[in-house]
């Protein structure tokens, strides 16, 4: 088969190097006999090889190789050997152990995330709380008062609100059916983490469902407002109970309730906002410690809140008819008086205690109605009024 110049020139280099197989080399040889251009091409390749071989590399001094040998021996004897690769077993169980450990970590993270989701105000319990609210109208009773609760609902609770309380209060209290008669025995209200609506009366106060527990105790579960802002338990009752793990477990009949708080000084009411505090009380209701859990954004307001709550007094929590120590979370809120807002004052300017107002809940509360300078617990109406005043 006659080859074209194009294909032959691709093989000329290998032909010149003697690397072509005999059959193809013969084809190239036949083509070269008849093609002068390809012969010149081959001559050029051979000339290039000859040219390249004719040039010597840099000529080195005679003693270079002695020096070279000395350097090599120096390197052999003085350079540190590369570290041996560490032994790594190739069988499978370490991989399985790693995978199992990873699985455990993932499970722990998922469980922790679920728990934190449950503990977040209004996160998961809201749906249940809403269902509860549909079934049971809120009891208009003030936490911390001895007044009987008034039950307005006629239905029965089919599914309880999980009032999640940890540690000593570590029970998920299933809210059983509440009737008016039973609910009259309720004396203390808890604020639940489970968010709910405010109830049929549309009040901004927390919806409080009466609970008839198994024994002599009744547990009142107060759901939060839908805006996740722990509501406004008038008089600043214990909003969110959280126990210390050192305390014995058992059913809590009543949680700590704020009884008394010193009036807010003029200089302390310069900022508005809400501080979430961690509070610990002893069995007499005395505040043992208080710290900021979630800042209001104002250091001044945070310190005022801590100071105020340390000077406050609570009604001790009761468990099995005995007063016990407790720890819980407390929302301390300072809000401007609505009258000042309506007059167009800047709520951010200095305001004295007279400019503070009590929430509707506080006014309703016979226990705290006279505490005119207590930090306001905020209501749904307040932001609306602020808007309209602007």
């Amino acid at each position, binding site marked *: 088969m006659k080859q074209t110049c194009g294909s032959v020139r*691709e093989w000329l*280099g*290998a032909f010149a*190097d003697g*690397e072509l197989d005999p059959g193809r080399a013969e084809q190239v040889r036949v083509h070269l006999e008849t093609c002068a251009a390809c012969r*010149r*091409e081959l*001559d*050029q*390749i051979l*000339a*290039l*090889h000859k*040219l*390249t*071989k*004719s*040039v*010597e*590399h*840099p*000529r*080195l*001094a005679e*003693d*270079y*190789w*002695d*020096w*070279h*040998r*000395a*350097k*090599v*021996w*120096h*390197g*052999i004897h*003085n*350079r540190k*050997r590369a570290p041996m690769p560490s032994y790594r077993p190739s069988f499978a169980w370490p991989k399985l152990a790693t995978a199992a450990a990873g699985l455990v970590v993932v499970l722990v993270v998922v469980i922790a995330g679920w728990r934190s989701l449950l503990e977040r105000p209004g996160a998961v319990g809201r749906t249940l709380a809403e269902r509860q609210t549909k079934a049971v109208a809120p009891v208009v009773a003030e936490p911390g008062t001895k007044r009987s609760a008034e039950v307005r609902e006629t239905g029965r609770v089919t599914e309880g609100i999980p009032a999640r309380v940890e540690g000593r209060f570590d029970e998920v209290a299933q809210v059983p059916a509440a009737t008016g008669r039973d609910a009259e025995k309720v004396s203390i209200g808890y604020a639940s983490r489970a968010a709910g609506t405010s109830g049929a009366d549309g009040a901004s106060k927390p919806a409080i469902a009466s609970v008839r527990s198994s024994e002599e105790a009744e547990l009142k579960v107060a759901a939060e407002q839908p805006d996740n802002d722990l509501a406004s338990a008038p008089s600043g009752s214990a909003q969110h109970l959280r126990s210390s793990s050192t305390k014995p477990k058992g059913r809590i009949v009543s949680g700590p309730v704020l009884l008394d708080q010193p009036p807010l000084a003029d200089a302390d009411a310069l900022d508005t906002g809400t501080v979430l505090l961690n509070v610990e009380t002893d069995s007499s209701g005395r505040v043992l410690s208080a710290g900021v859990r979630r800042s209001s954004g104002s250091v001044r307001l945070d310190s005022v809140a801590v100071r105020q709550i340390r000077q406050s007094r609570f009604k001790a929590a009761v468990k099995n008819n005995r007063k016990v120590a407790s720890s819980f979370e407390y929302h301390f809120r300072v809000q401007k008086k609505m009258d000042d807002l309506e007059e167009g004052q800047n709520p951010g300017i200095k305001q004295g205690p007279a400019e503070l107002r009590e929430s509707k809940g506080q006014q309703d509360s016979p226990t705290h109605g006279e505490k005119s300078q207590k930090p306001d617990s905020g209501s749904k109406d307040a932001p609306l009024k602020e808007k309209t005043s602007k």
Partner: protein
Amino acid sequence: MKRYAASVYKVTYGLTRNHADADDLSQETFIRAYRAIARFDEHYQFYTWVRRIAVNLCFNHIKRGKKFRFVPLPIADGDDESADIADPQPQSADCGLGRDLEQALVKLPPDQRAVFVLRVNEEMSYEEISQALGIPVGTVMSRLNRAREKLRELLREYMPAT
């Protein structure tokens, strides 16, 4: 060793076109060979084995883009064997063809230059080059053809008239 050292230096210089690199790489070649002598197969020629080490070192060096350079060994106190030995510089290359060929080879891409040098200077077969560089024989052929075309163009004045 001197015979092998010169040959290895020729390989390393041919691939790097740089005396300093060639010097370091040729020394490193013998150090590696000494440490790996237990793995040497006596069925093969010693130089073939050492040259393979040198080519691998040079190619690794080229692949690093000259970011990596061998650091001169520290001379220990009292190490008279090498402390007093100066580094003799190579004598200047011939002018004319030698210089032009040097410049032409430097202008070649490293992969083409390596194939060309191993074939022409070292007279390695395509199969040996293929194994040394880890590339197919067809790639060796194509790189050789491209290298020849460029060198013929760069060294046109030394080529016979077509």
